[in-house]
């Protein structure tokens, strides 16, 4: 149990002809009429990093769940290290030497690192033996792979990057030779991502086979040896990474030519629309979630808010949209003061001309069990969209919804389809259509392209730029640094509920932004950040 991976390596693996760690033949899986995986063939060479890339809903996660035994395939064959295996549960997978790091960590936050790693392999009735063994294991990991973690630190208090390290140790502790990582970089800063890649390279050198699932092209290019592309449940191509390029991969993923770079024209900022001064807010439990936030937003510009997820961006959006009470300070929105003494609810904000595309369309943006036509009036149902009478004007609503479906290219969209039956990208288009069509003076956008496929991302970005050029003031919040950098005219960076700096478009450098997102001090030339930087 306590053997690290290296010592379990089989002799001869490194220098003989390419050996396959994993081989899939004609794997198929259906959910009702939906064929999530169709005749998937996949060969993963031992000791390589193999990327699997595809849009959301392409069937990547289903395939991984089949590999890890969480779901059974309907048909097909799976070979692990050349042997025909029938993996029926994750326990089976672990026994066959397959480890998995899930997108959402499976850790107990109130346990220490040691206790988390020990979980499931405690040994006897008393914990003493297990503790000693696990402590030794952690020391070996630190020495062998440079994966240093304080065994006694509480997992809940660790930064996300370190938590992920604990997950990897857990996945490898049983001597796993195949490691599956499901979208591992979604919650990491660029620096943490680089740290993760370093670890992956060491593991690879040690003979571990790594399957990396992602929808980010740059990661595939940066770290993988070979890449397989999935589209609509099928494998559409396998490439050696050195022989391909992002453009080709994107086209394989989407099935047509796509514009990877946004056509960003220079902004033409006009009058002030939103002035935030010294804004603060608290969570229900009384924690300070926003502190001393000050910035300005003008008509005709996009202000990007960069930051690692969970550093107060959501709270900032909610406060500005009227969904969360203002604590300290306040803001001027279109000439109206909003602070603790003059609260305004979401309805009042909307009446002033503020629209809000929330970052979580399932929780806030849509009522999934409502039809599309009921969703396109959400928040505007007291306005002219629903007519004048005592009863809502159903014809008018349907016509409105049909026009939006047409204009915003909601695929498979009919007015009476339930929102939950649309794909993620089309759901997002419904939200964006509703808010953009209201012709807001100020628009707050959160994660506009989260879980949205490449084709729809292109469309959504174009919409935002067009809205800006029509004179809307846009506050864009996203954890995708690339999105912030390609769309914004100015960028502010948040960390631990505070602003840590401001960067103009063009001056933005991914590394510098990454440092600021991680709580590093901004360069002195940025005035807003003086003495404000906090540390994790």
């Amino acid at each position, binding site marked *: 149990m306590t053997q690290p991976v290296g010592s379990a390596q089989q002799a001869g693996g490194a220098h003989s002809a390419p050996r396959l760690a994993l081989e899939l033949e004609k794997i198929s899986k259906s959910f009702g009429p*939906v064929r999530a995986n169709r005749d998937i063939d996949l060969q993963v060479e031992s000791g390589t990093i193999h990327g699997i890339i595809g849009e959301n809903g392409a069937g990547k996660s289903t395939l991984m769940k089949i590999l890890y035994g969480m779901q059974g395939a309907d048909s097909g064959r799976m070979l692990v290290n050349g042997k025909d295996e029938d993996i029926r549960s994750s326990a089976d997978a672990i026994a066959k030497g397959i480890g998995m790091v899930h997108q959402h960590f499976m850790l107990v936050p109130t346990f220490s690192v040691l206790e988390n790693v020990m979980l499931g392999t405690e040994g006897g009735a008393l914990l003493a033996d297990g503790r000693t063994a696990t402590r030794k294991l952690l020391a070996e990991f630190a020495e062998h792979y440079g994966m240093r973690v304080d065994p006694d630190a509480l997992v809940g208090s660790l930064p996300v990057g370190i938590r992920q390290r604990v997950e990897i140790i857990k996945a490898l502790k049983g001597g796993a030779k195949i490691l599956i990582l499901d979208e591992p970089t979604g919650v990491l800063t660029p620096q943490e991502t680089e740290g993760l890649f370093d670890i992956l390279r060491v593991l690879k050198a040690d003979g571990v086979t790594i399957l990396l699932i992602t929808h980010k092209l740059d990661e595939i290019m940066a770290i993988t040896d070979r890449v397989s592309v999935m589209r*609509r*449940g099928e494998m559409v191509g396998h490439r050696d990474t050195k022989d391909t390029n992002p453009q080709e991969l994107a086209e394989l993923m989407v099935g047509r030519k796509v514009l990877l770079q946004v056509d960003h024209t220079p902004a033409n900022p006009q009058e002030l629309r939103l002035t935030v001064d010294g804004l603060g807010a608290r969570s229900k439990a009384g924690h300070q979630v926003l502190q001393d936030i000050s910035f300005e937003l003008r008509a005709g510009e996009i202000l990007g808010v960069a930051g690692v997820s969970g550093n107060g961006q959501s709270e900032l959006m909610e406060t500005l949209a009227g969904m969360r009470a203002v604590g300290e300070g306040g803001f001027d929105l279109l000439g109206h003061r909003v602070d603790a003494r003059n609260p305004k609810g979401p*309805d*009042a904000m909307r009446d002033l001309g503020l629209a809000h595309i929330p970052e979580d369309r399932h929780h806030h943006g849509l009522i999934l069990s409502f039809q599309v036509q*009921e969703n396109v009036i959400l*928040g505007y149902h007291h306005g002219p969209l629903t007519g004048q009478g005592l009863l809502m004007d*159903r014809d008018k609503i349907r016509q409105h919804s049909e026009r939006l479906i047409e204009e915003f290219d909601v695929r498979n969209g009919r007015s009476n389809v339930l929102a939950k039956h649309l794909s993620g990208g089309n759901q997002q288009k419904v939200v964006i259509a509703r808010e953009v069509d209201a012709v807001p003076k100020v628009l707050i956008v959160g994660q506009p392209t989260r879980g949205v496929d490449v084709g729809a991302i292109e469309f959504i970005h174009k919409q935002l730029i067009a809205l800006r050029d029509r004179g809307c003031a846009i506050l864009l919040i996203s954890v995708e640094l690339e999105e912030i950098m390609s769309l914004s005219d100015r960028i502010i960076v948040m960390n631990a509920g505070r602003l840590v700096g401001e960067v103009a478009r063009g001056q933005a450098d991914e590394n510098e932004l990454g440092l600021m997102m991680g709580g590093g001090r901004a360069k002195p030339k940025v005035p807003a950040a003086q003495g404000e930087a906090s540390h994790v």
Partner: protein
Amino acid sequence: MFKSLGTPPPLPRWAEVLLLPLINIAVAFLACAVVIWALGENPREVLWTLFQGPFLYPGNLGYTLYYATNFIFTGLAVAVAFHAKLFNIGGEGQVTLGGLGVGLLVMSLGPTLPAILMVPMVILVSAAFGALWALIPGYLQAYRGSHIVITTIMFNFIASAIMVSLLSGPMMQPGQMSPQTPPFPSNAVLHKTHDVLHWLGFDQVANSPMNLSFFVALLALVGTWMLIWRTRLGYEIRGIGNNPDAAHYAGIRVPRIVLLTMAISGALAGMMALNEVAGAQQRVILNFSGQYGFVGIAVALIGRNHPVGILLASLLFGALYQGGTEIDFNYQSITREMVTLIQGLIILFSGALYYMFDPWLARILALILPRKANPEGGPS
């Protein structure tokens, strides 16, 4: 685990709304037939009595509709609240208060006003008292976070205590031993349907307690349908029920809608007093609410919270109540409680086990019906 079966295809809507409930009710009756057989009676005969009882004998249809009226009001009350995901179990208490309100109004005004003024007031007061009784738990839920299930149950007990103390005290008919008010003057009653029909010249109609409040109930069905699916308020009620976070995002004031929903729900429950108090008894008697407030939960459940479903479920339950009386009359070994058993089975199969047959039915239908082309193919 169920590898070979896979996930069943989704059930067509017509099958879910129509076929599945019919199958569930059929299975409930089948289970009941087994019980009757075990008791030594002929299930076919007994069930036939149960079926023809409510409809064939003179006046029995009137009884069926009279019972159904109660179920429509209490079923609607539960359904309206449930659209906002509020579980109003306080129908019983709201019915009681509605009746007490009517009693107080009639006793204080007496036979002074003409019926054209008095009857609308009776209707309004029954709704207002029911609404008020639901508003208090609604307020506690919306602004204090006290769970509505707990508070409405407690308010049932309080209502019942108030009723006992008033009916055995200030409201009791002088010179009587039973806890009831004096009979209402004729200006304050909803007339019996057979009286109206006799007056219109249909002499052969048999007597029954069915009264004009049945038509108020039908109006309430239509009104509730309009409210929930055609008005902005109904949209907001369904909004907070389906996703309170999104409702908050949309600027809907959730606490306010909770209050309004509970008021409407309570008003509908309170109006059941029209049937029992102003229509059938024409006085307030002890425990006139007769557990209809609770059975309303089952009615709403079986009616899937839709007015059409509630109408059908109310007719079914009304027929069962009346049929139960017939069985009681005709058989020695089977009592009226058999109906409660059937009710229980129907609730079990239509409510708790609603989706038991769903996967099987879906598979069978998928085999029979021509397979529609899957437009996308992908799992997008």
